C-alpha cells in the first residue's frame, strides 16, 4: 500500500495541487515559474474565451454521438459473434487487434483512407456512384470522421467486454422462456437487456472515463480542424499550454474540466448503483 500511495501522491496529487497553485498565478516565461498572485483572473479569462466554450461543445457533441454508438455497436456485435461455431475463437481474437492499435496510428491510417484525392474510401463509394465526400475538410464531415475513427478504435473494446458478459448470463432462464414459447425479440427485451443493465452501465462508465480524455485521434486525424471544428477540449488546452505558452490559463481550464468530469462521473456512478439495485 505505502509504495503505491507514495508514488500516486508524487505523480498524481502533487501535480494536481501544483496545477491549482499555478491556476491562481501568472507564469513568468523567463523562468517558467509562477511569480504573481492573480486570484481568479485565469478562470475569468478562460470562461470569457469563446474558443474554450467551442471546444467544450465539440467535446460534448463527440461524447453524445460516439458513446451511445459504441455501446450499441459493441453489444450488438458481441451478440453476433457469440453464436457458437468453430470459428468463434478466431473472430473474437480478431477483435482484439483494432483495440491495441495506438490511437495516433488509428488517426493517421484513417486520414490516409479518407484522403480526398487518393484515399480508398472515396474510391469505394465512388464505384457505387456516391461522393466524393470531403471527409476531413468539411466541418460537419470532419466531426463525423472523428466520431467514426473513435468508434472504429473503441467498439471492439466494448464488444470484448460485452461478449464476456453475455457468456455469464444464466442459460436456464432462456431455456425456460423458450419452452414458454417466447420469441427471441421478447427474450431480448424482457430477459437479456434487464440482466445486462448493470454490465452496460459499468462498461459505459469505463468508456466515458476514456472518452473524456480523447486527444490523440483528433490530433492525428484532423489536428482539430478544419478551423477548430474538431478541437476537443483536451487538444485545445494542449495547444494553449504548449503552443501559446499560456500555462496559467491552461491550468485554470484543465481544472474546470477536472471538476466537470468528476461531477459527471459521480452522477454516472450513482446512476449505475441505482440501476444495479433496481434489478
Amino acid at each position, binding site marked *: 500500500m505505502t509504495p503505491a500511495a507514495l508514488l500516486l501522491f508524487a505523480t498524481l496529487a502533487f501535480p494536481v495541487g501544483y496545477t491549482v497553485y499555478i491556476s491562481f498565478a501568472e507564469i513568468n516565461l523567463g523562468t517558467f515559474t509562477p511569480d504573481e498572485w492573480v486570484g481568479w483572473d485565469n478562470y475569468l479569462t478562460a470562461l470569457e474565451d469563446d474558443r474554450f466554450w467551442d471546444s467544450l461543445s465539440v467535446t460534448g457533441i463527440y461524447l453524445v454521438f460516439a458513446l451511445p454508438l459504441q455501446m450499441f455497436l459493441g453489444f450488438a456485435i458481441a451478440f453476433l459473434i457469440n453464436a457458437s461455431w468453430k470459428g468463434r475463437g478466431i473472430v473474437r481474437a480478431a477483435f482484439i487487434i483494432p483495440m491495441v492499435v495506438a490511437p495516433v496510428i488509428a488517426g493517421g*491510417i484513417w486520414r*490516409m483512407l479518407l484522403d480526398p484525392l487518393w484515399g480508398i474510401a472515396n474510391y469505394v463509394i465512388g464505384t457505387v456512384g456516391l461522393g466524393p465526400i470531403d471527409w476531413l475538410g468539411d466541418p460537419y464531415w470532419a466531426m463525423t470522421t472523428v466520431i467514426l475513427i473513435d468508434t472504429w478504435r473503441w467498439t471492439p473494446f466494448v464488444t470484448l467486454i460485452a461478449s464476456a458478459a453475455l457468456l455469464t448470463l444464466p442459460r436456464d432462464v432462456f431455456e425456460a422462456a423458450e419452452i414458454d414459447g417466447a420469441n427471441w425479440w421478447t427474450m431480448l427485451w424482457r430477459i437479456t437487456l434487464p440482466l445486462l443493465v448493470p454490465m452496460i452501465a459499468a462498461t459505459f462508465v469505463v468508456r466515458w472515463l476514456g472518452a473524456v480524455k480523447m*486527444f*490523440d485521434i483528433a490530433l492525428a486525424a484532423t489536428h482539430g480542424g478544419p478551423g477548430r471544428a474538431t478541437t476537443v477540449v483536451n487538444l485545445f488546452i*494542449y495547444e494553449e499550454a504548449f503552443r501559446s505558452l499560456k500555462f496559467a490559463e491552461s491550468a485554470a481550464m*484543465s481544472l474546470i474540466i477536472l471538476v466537470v468530469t468528476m461531477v459527471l462521473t459521480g452522477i454516472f456512478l450513482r446512476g449505475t448503483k441505482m440501476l444495479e439495485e433496481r434489478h
Partner: protein
Amino acid sequence: MSATTTRSGTHRRRAAILRQFRIWSGVVACVLFLLPIAWMLITSIKQQRDIFTTPPKIIFAPTLDTYVAYLTNNDLPERMLNTLIVAGGAGVISIVAGAMAGYALARVKLRGATTIGVLILLSRGVPPIALAVPMFLVARAMGLLDKHITLILAYCTFLIPYVMWLMRGFFKALPEELEEAAKIDGCTRFGAFFRIIVPISLPGLLSTLIFSIILAWEELLFALVLTNRAASTVPVVISGIAGDTVNGANWGALTAVGTMTVIPVVIFALLVQKWLIQGLADGATKG
C-alpha cells in the same frame, strides 16, 4: 400433438436461420473492422508510385524499402528502444506498486476502503492535460525534461490506479483460507503475499502487466510534452509523420512505422487474449 410438433419445428428452423445470420454478420463485422489494418499492411509494402494511384492498386511489386530505410538511416530504432524502456519500466513499477496496494485494499480491513476504491476510479477521470502542464513545469525546473524516468513516472499516474483496480478484484476472488494457512505455518503477511498469493495470481499479474505496457506503449500526450529528442517515443514520431503538412502525406512511412509499432503489441495481446478479455470484463465491473 401434431400442432406442437410443427410449431417447435418452425421454431427450430428459425433458430437455425438466426444462428446462420449471427455467424455470417459477425464475420462481416470482423472483416470490416480489420480492413483498415489490412490496408495499412498493404500500403507499407508498396513503392511510392504504387501508393498514389486511382484506382488504388491491389496488385503491385511488393518492396520492403520503407522498412529498411526507417530501420537503418533513421533514429527510429532509438525511439523504439526508448518506447520499450519507458513502457517496460512504467509497467513493472506499476504492477509491483499497484498489485501490493490492490492486495491491501482487498484484504486489510481499512476504514474507508470503499472511499479509496471510489477515489481510485475517480482518479482515472483526471484529464492528463491537468497533469501534463505542472509536470512539464516541474520537470523543466528540475532539469528532468527529455529523461526516461520522467516519462515512466508520468505513466504511473494512470497505470497504478488501473492495476490497483484490476488486481483488487482479482485478489478479492481468492479464498482467504490461503493466507490463513500460511500464517499458521509462521508466514508474515508479506511472506504470505509473496510466497502464496503472487505465484497463484501469476497469470492475472502477467496479463495486467502486458496490458499496462500496451497502454504506455501507445501513449502520446505525455510523450509529446515531456520529451523532445533523447527520450522521445514512437507515437511522437508517428504524430509527426501524420501531421507533416510541409512535405505532404508520407503514407509509406506512416504505414511502415505504424505496422512495426502494432505488430509486437498484437502478438503480445493475442498471446494473453484469454486473460485480457477477462481482465477487461473484470475491470469494468468488479468494485
